[in-house]
């Protein structure tokens, strides 16, 4: 009860516009998710095995990682036993609390990027094919540009047909330089060039695109390690962020993606894209829980400014908005 109020109060202090965007983007997500929780609570008179089984399904449907769901359910069962809860309505509060706990993780966690006050900041983007790396880079470049920073983009996807051109179009659109070589050239060499160019042009931020690769392709993952090594060698402490782009529609495989990319490139944050569809992106919960990688941005549409900093509370608020409102009426 008081928990939701606290959450709501915290949220309302923040700019309404951003919250609205989150709510809009998550409308479909929220409708089905909390709607189902409500429905579940209403239908069951007793907290029993069947109740938990169905709850399990609801969480699974949101693509929350499998292990995480199992853990969560175990914890809930314990909690229910401990507090001797009989009424499903009482469980509802516990469910939300547990979810938020996982989402928020460490208290002082922020989604802020590690941007250097002085000198060049290098951001490296990685991920499987078709998740929206290049689009996200375009949006992020726009964001930095608006903030008055000098941005350079590195066209590190030398493999996919049209990838370099795609980044170039974004470069023109946003008004930033794109460093490129021909299709098929060594991405590590492109990075080397890009770092030199960014340095000599006194850029604040270098954003590096890479080709999409499935995490089980050992050679391609090795190539990515090499790309990272080149950046490390040329700029001390770089890359300052390695961002893994995840498609919100991806299921359990996203967890393996996060794990493998983390091993290869020490991923520091996640960008969750395509959250404006009906997909729930619940897998970030599992990734947070099992690998500790925070979500830094979410993609909520195709427009240039549709990239939002991830805010755990807002995300949860989006998921549970009608729960919050319902409690207030009571």
């Amino acid at each position, binding site marked *: 009860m008081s928990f939701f109020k606290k959450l709501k109060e915290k949220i309302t202090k923040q700019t309404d516009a951003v919250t609205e965007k989150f709510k809009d983007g998550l409308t479909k997500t929220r409708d089905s998710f909390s709607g189902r929780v409500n429905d579940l609570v209403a239908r069951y008179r007793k907290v029993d095995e069947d109740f938990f089984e169905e709850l399990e399904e609801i969480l699974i449907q949101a693509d929350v990682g499998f292990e995480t769901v199992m853990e969560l359910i175990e914890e809930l069962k314990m909690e229910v036993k401990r507090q001797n809860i009989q009424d499903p309505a009482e469980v509802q509060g516990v469910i939300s609390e547990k979810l938020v706990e996982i989402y928020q993780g460490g208290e002082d966690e922020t989604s802020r990027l590690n941007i250097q006050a002085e000198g060049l900041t290098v951001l490296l983007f990685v991920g499987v094919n078709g998740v*929206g790396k290049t689009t996200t880079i375009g949006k992020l470049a726009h964001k930095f540009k608006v903030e008055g920073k000098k941005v350079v983009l590195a066209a590190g996807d030398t493999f996919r047909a049209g990838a370099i*051109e795609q980044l170039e179009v974004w470069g023109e659109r946003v008004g930033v330089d794109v460093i490129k070589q021909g299709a098929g050239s060594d991405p590590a060499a492109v990075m080397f060039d890009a770092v030199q160019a960014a340095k000599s042009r006194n850029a604040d931020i270098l954003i590096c695109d890479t080709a999409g690769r499935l995490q089980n392709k050992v050679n391609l993952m090795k190539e990515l390690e090499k790309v990272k090594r080149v950046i490390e060698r040329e700029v001390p402490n770089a890359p300052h962020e390695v961002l893994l782009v995840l498609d919100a529609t991806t299921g359990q495989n996203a967890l393996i993606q996060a794990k493998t990319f983390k091993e290869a490139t020490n991923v520091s944050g996640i960008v969750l894209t395509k959250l404006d569809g009906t997909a729930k992106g619940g897998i970030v919960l599992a990734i947070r829980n099992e690998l500790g990688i925070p979500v830094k941005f979410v993609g909520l549409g195709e427009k240039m400014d549709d990239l939002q900093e991830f805010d755990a509370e807002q995300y949860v608020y989006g998921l549970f908005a009608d729960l919050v409102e319902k409690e207030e009426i009571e």
Partner: protein
Amino acid sequence: MAFEGLADRLQSTMQKIRGKGKVSEADVKEMMREVRLALLEADVNFKVVKEFVKKVSERAVGQEVLKSLTPGQQVIKVVKEELTNLMGGEESKIAVSNRPPTVIMMVGLQGAGKTTTTGKLANLLRKKYNRTPLLVAADIYRPAAIKQLETLGKQLDMPVFSLGDQVSPVEIAKQAIAKAKEDHHDYVLIDTAGRLHVDEALMGELKEIKELANPNEIFLVVDAMTGQDAVNVAASFNEQLGLTGVVLTKLDGDTRGGAALSIRSVTNTPIKFIGLGEKLDALESFHPERMASRILGMGDVLTLIEKAQENVDEEKAREMEKKMRTASFTLDDFLEQLGQVRNMGPLDELLKMMPGANKIKGLNNMQIDEKQITHVEAIIQSMTKEEKIHPEIITAGRRKRIAKGSGTSVPEVNRLLKQFEDMKKMMKQMTGMQQKGKKKGKKKGGFNLPFNPFQ
């Protein structure tokens, strides 16, 4: 990470049951829970899972499993059969219009792989059916999408129709079909922009294209890694456009691909092709029973066998087998065998197809070093003819020379020679066993690698 297949899951349940003599209904229920978990873990939609488990339970309780001596095996068998049934038969046929050109529309979410698949499909149409497709770049929204298709067209040496990104996709489709008629193309492949199924404006555009182009096929391209949302996407596209087929992409990844089952069951349209890589020939027909194995985490023996059949010359294999039996197997033969295995594709992919391979500890994370095989090849190639036939004559001096010639080290040469000798010994033992047990010979033709590539 605990991505275990159904077989592993059932094993623990089976251990509890073992020794009971009889399997009760409660036991079946417990097994069904494992089936359910295995499917959910594979990203099959939970509603689909529910239906499915109900069906399998009925069959299981209805004697088949209860009376079986090996209920675990029986459950797996029933599950696999039902899965295969559910995914329908093999239907990789592509419609042919009796008034050419045949029009195919490619639709789907962003990043599913439509453009790449369009290129692959064009390649298949030409290669397998001897057709002359016209590719149509109707994705005017994503930057450089047109360029991407044009590049693929260049790689394939096929014409791509484009009007730039300022003309509406409907108009592009219209003019493309006229152009195809004029130039006598028998197929028109329209690559549309990725869009969300809930985007009314863009879905409306697809409907317009459909009305105008009157396509013979509308293929939904879906990422195999898609989770629970696959049902919403597929159902929605199907409702709005009336799909005729589905292409599942990125199956060369390590996803279980449960989305295949979900999509099939909500749309009731056949999965026609699967994408297995970034190269333009990496498009294959969909095989339900293989997909079932994959979803259940049971390996893919059929594909493995097929690959072996495609790449291993049977006559050579027989000859090799004879050599093994008579212990006249030389390093030259070994080199040849190695080449055949390599022809079948990357070793780690082959291994993944082997049932039970995921059970071997560490195999999942193991990185197979293809370079080591190259080293072995180089070592053997640096030997003289005489040395290859009689490796026992290779003295320390010769070893040094071989190491130098192959760019490896003496210990590496030593290791190979030792392993080759061990292998020969093993063959002798095997032939000994075979002679005692008669027959059985055929099975052992296989690929005993006399070195461990997994170090």
